[in-house]
């Protein structure tokens, strides 16, 4: 029962702040709403008993990337960007297409649940208290079965760092 309420609570916050983020004129407000959306998704990870991902999401996403975003928003002087119209000309067409996509995928989820056989696996998840300690298992699998992707990810981060530095350097 508690799970259900928690899920609906976090889901409502996530969808509401995401919607607000997209529609706000003031970029700082939309950044704040994105932060709330990210925290809500972190809450959902917690509800799914993925604590390690919960804290990584907070440290990396909210504490790292969003700080970057807020810094850039500060550096880019906002009063110029505010006056200009915020939405692209082809706004309505784009909205229509997106909603069509939504309807289609929604219908697919909806029906698959009904049809037997090729539908979604009707498994019951492992009970919460018999789950192994989350961070240990993540660590074990990260450094044993997924060691190569881990190294590639670190190279990727290195490349991104160098790229960002080169781009942001003053053209002297």
């Amino acid at each position, binding site marked *: 029962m508690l799970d259900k309420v928690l899920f609906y609570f976090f889901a409502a916050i996530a969808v509401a702040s*995401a919607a607000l983020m997209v529609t706000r004129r003031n970029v700082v407000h939309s950044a704040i709403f994105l932060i709330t959306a990210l925290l809500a998704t972190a809450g959902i990870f917690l509800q799914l008993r993925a604590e390690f991902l919960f804290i990584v999401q907070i440290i990396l996403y909210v504490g790292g990337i969003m700080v970057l975003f807020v810094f850039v928003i500060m550096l880019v002087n906002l009063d110029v960007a505010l006056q200009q119209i915020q939405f692209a000309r082809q706004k309505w067409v784009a909205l229509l297409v997106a909603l069509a996509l939504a309807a289609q995928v929604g219908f697919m989820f909806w029906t698959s649940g009904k049809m037997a056989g090729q539908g979604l696996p009707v498994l019951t998840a492992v009970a919460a208290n018999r789950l192994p300690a989350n961070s240990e298992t993540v660590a074990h699998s990260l450094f044993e079965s997924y060691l190569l992707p881990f190294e590639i990810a670190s190279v990727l981060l290195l490349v991104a760092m160098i790229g960002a530095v080169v781009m942001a350097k003053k053209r002297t």
Partner: protein
Amino acid sequence: MLPIGHYLFLSLALFIIGVIGVVTRRNVIVVLMSIELILNAVNINLVAFSRLYGDVAGQVFALFIIADAAAEAAVALGIIIAFFRNRETVLEDEMDLLKW
């Protein structure tokens, strides 16, 4: 753990809002933020299924997505700053020059 359908619809909703953000907004920073939102929607799905099957691979993959999102955000913001310094604008439909 609720039945999987709930998580699917939630991530679908976030995904669609992200797509709307990318497609309709002119301000590049908001477009970038919407991309972050889409990545987040994907993460929810991954973690939900990882919890359903009890296999932690999904969470590890979500970890890699977050790392990649960080890298992508860093480079994209670097480009925006460089662009803003020269052209004084942040709107995407004015970014029509390949080399400035």
